[in-house]
């Protein structure tokens, strides 16, 4: 242990203050988050609001992955809806089968309505097993991401091409799901989910339990992501983002580095989708296509994609604003969201999390120091490169 610890997510965008001991800042922030999410929120919010917060926290879990893949790895992941959907459908399929078993039916309700066959399709059958379904919520998205990433990163596809490919995959999956009405519920998706591993979701107590599960999952994933950020791998990922060629000349394979970030982000999106199902009670192709996939990225971009806390808060804030503002100004919200995205990408590439840092560096010294603050400018240059 020679000098200080490698820069964490908070210090990546803000200069550390001398007054707080640096090594305690992350655990302290983490503890504060845990107290807010597990203590203050359930006490202060009525059931319906807490349920909404649970939904927003699912988006926040996706944002953790986006922060890793895009913020740190520079991969513009515009197709997270695919992984969110795979996780969500894997969970919903199991819950539908469990509901059908409780009701004494052989098939889920929508298959009885729209299906033509009396038997469960073969690819539904293993999802009756809770352990298999749970594993699939994470493994299925990770496998798809692994295959796609392996092909794409090997061939050095990047930037806009990678983003377009992600979007195409999102569009394809949602169209396929719509077309298979008899086995996937079509545009309706899988709805009317009643139980969650034996617990009746209509009971507010169980809804609270789901909230706690989601909040704990978010906190654990944030802690894990931070560990990844400060690890050697995290440093390497940022290096790949900022100069892939140099990393290659140093003897590392950037494709593998990117692949790991992409697969982990996909796993997080899958888990978020799986947790979204008991919280909201529905999963449908409308949550998977191009528009929601962009939506997953907007929150993280607004909050600050390279900052873990920024991305998470951004995702929650944008989702909250959407729910509240769309009632007051139904038509205006979409424009506002687009405008916000353009403004942030154009003028504040580090997101709102970088606002404080920008002000501080401006105040402290002119351009010479700002150029010397490596991480802030690295974020800025990396994003100008992508958006150009």
């Amino acid at each position, binding site marked *: *242990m020679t000098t200080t*610890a490698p820069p964490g997510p908070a210090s990546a965008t803000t200069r550390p203050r001398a007054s707080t001991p640096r*090594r305690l800042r*992350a*655990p302290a922030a*983490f*503890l504060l988050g*845990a107290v807010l999410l*597990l203590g203050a929120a359930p006490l202060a919010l*009525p*059931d*319906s609001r807490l349920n909404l917060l649970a*939904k927003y926290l699912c988006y926040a879990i996706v944002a953790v992955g986006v922060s890793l893949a895009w913020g740190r790895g520079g991969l513009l992941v515009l197709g997270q809806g695919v992984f969110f959907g795979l996780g969500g459908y894997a969970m919903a399929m199991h819950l539908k089968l469990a*509901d059908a078993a*409780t009701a004494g039916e052989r098939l889920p309700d929508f298959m*009885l*309505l*729209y299906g033509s066959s009396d038997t469960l399709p073969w690819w539904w059958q293993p999802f009756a097993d809770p352990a298999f379904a749970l594993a699939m919520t994470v493994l299925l998205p990770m496998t798809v991401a692994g295959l796609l990433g392996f092909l794409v990163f090997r061939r050095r596809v990047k930037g806009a091409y990678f983003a377009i490919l992600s979007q195409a995959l999102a569009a394809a999956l949602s*169209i396929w799901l*719509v*077309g298979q*009405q008899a086995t996937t519920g*079509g*545009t*309706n*998706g899988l*709805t*009317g*989910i009643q*139980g969650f591993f*034996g*617990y*009746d979701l*209509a*009971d*507010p*107590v*169980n809804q*609270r*339990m789901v909230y*706690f*599960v989601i*909040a*704990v999952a978010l*906190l*654990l994933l944030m*802690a894990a992501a931070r560990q990844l950020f400060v690890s050697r791998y995290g440093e390497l990922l940022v290096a790949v983002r900022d100069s892939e060629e140099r990393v290659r000349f140093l003897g590392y394979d950037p494709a593998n580095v990117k692949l790991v970030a992409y697969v982990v982000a996909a796993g997080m999106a899958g888990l978020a989708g799986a947790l979204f199902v008991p919280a*909201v*009670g*529905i999963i*449908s192709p*409308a*949550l998977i296509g191009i528009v929601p996939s962009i939506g997953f990225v907007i929150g993280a971009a607004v909050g600050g994609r390279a900052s873990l806390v920024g991305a998470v808060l951004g995702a929650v804030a944008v989702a909250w604003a959407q*729910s509240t503002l*769309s*009632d007051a100004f*139904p*038509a205006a*919200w*979409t424009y506002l969201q687009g405008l916000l995205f353009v403004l942030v990408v154009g003028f504040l590439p580090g997101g709102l999390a970088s606002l404080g840092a920008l002000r501080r560096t401006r105040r402290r010294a002119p351009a010479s120091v700002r150029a010397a603050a490596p991480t802030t400018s690295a974020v800025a240059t990396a994003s100008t490169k992508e958006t150009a």
Partner: protein
Amino acid sequence: MSGLSISRRGLLTGLSVLGASAAIGACGAKTGSDRTSTAGAKADTSGDTVRVGLLNSLSGTMAISEVTVHNALLLAVKEINADGGVLGKKLDPVSQDGASDWPTFAEKAEALITGDKVAATFGCWTSASRKAVKPVFERHRSLLFYPVQYEGLEQSPYIFYTGATTNQQIVPALDYLRKKGLTRLYLVGSDYVFPRTANKIIRAYAKGNGMRVLGEDYAPLGSTEFSTIVNKVKESGADAVFNTLNGDSNVAFFKEYKSSGLSAKALPVLSVSIAEEEVKSIGAPYLEGQLTAWNYYQTTPGAANTAFVEAYQAAYGKDKPTSDPMEAAYLSVHLWKAMVEKAGSFDVAKVKAAADGITFDAPEGTTTVDGATQHVHKTARIGRIGADGLITEVWSSGGPIKPDPYLKGYDWASGLS
């Protein structure tokens, strides 16, 4: 560095223990147990006004259609308030935007029931949005009035369906085509639940009634590329096209249809999702002479309809057409009022009990609620689109048809559900 990771690890363990205990300690009812114990919020009807929820997409792709339904609902609320309200209480409409997004519909339904404590909710358009809110209304034992024609095969105890079910729209339309000798059909639809289910019913009908289905094609919602489908229709040798396309796709389909040389005379198209509002946006020249199947047209005769059209145009503009879903929405509020007044209470169970046999002198004619299915008796009407964009009736079932959402009264439909 090492100190840091130890403290973090300690924290993590503590947190997961805390989370796990919170989760385990907070377990409620199990599935399969009596669900009445978990009934949700109660409507607040104690004040001088009673809140009612209006749940429509005011933004997003469905807004163009759903805003007209929203307007019709507001008109009905205004009329009822001008007339003294319901049980002496004025109605206070609370609008929530479903934003053309199904989970949002569920979220907003929850907000209306538990937050605004509405006495009843009116709205939804797509089947997907209805399926999304259905468990919410059932869980809270709150009422939804659904005003759009749909694919049937549903009967929630907490939904009243005031639009047509299949035996009041699609089946009479097929009867009409068969009587006209148009027995070879080509099916074109948007790729979602209503067209797919409707086409399943059409195939069953065709099989049982000596008609033939020569082709069945789906376009993604919002698709505007129809040259392939129109070519296939042209070469199929069909007598008529049964069209379940929704929204903007109709514009592209009918333009392509006309430019490829097809006409209403040579190969008529019968549409079940094109009403006066859509005719306006597609353009009457493209649609002139084509057929539609509904229960109400702006031109439907009767004093009730004249008053409705006048009131609507006075409120929203002289050039605004009225359409079937708008009329069904308008009548749904009036039906609810009549049910509440018969029950003498806003209580959901009492309102449901009072529903059977409730009538309202609606713009489409006198409508009666069927208590067993919670659907409405409706007259089927086939219309022809005129050059002025209005639709005139060319055939009607002569009187209201009893709703049969599961098509139990039809032998050919026995294998459907």
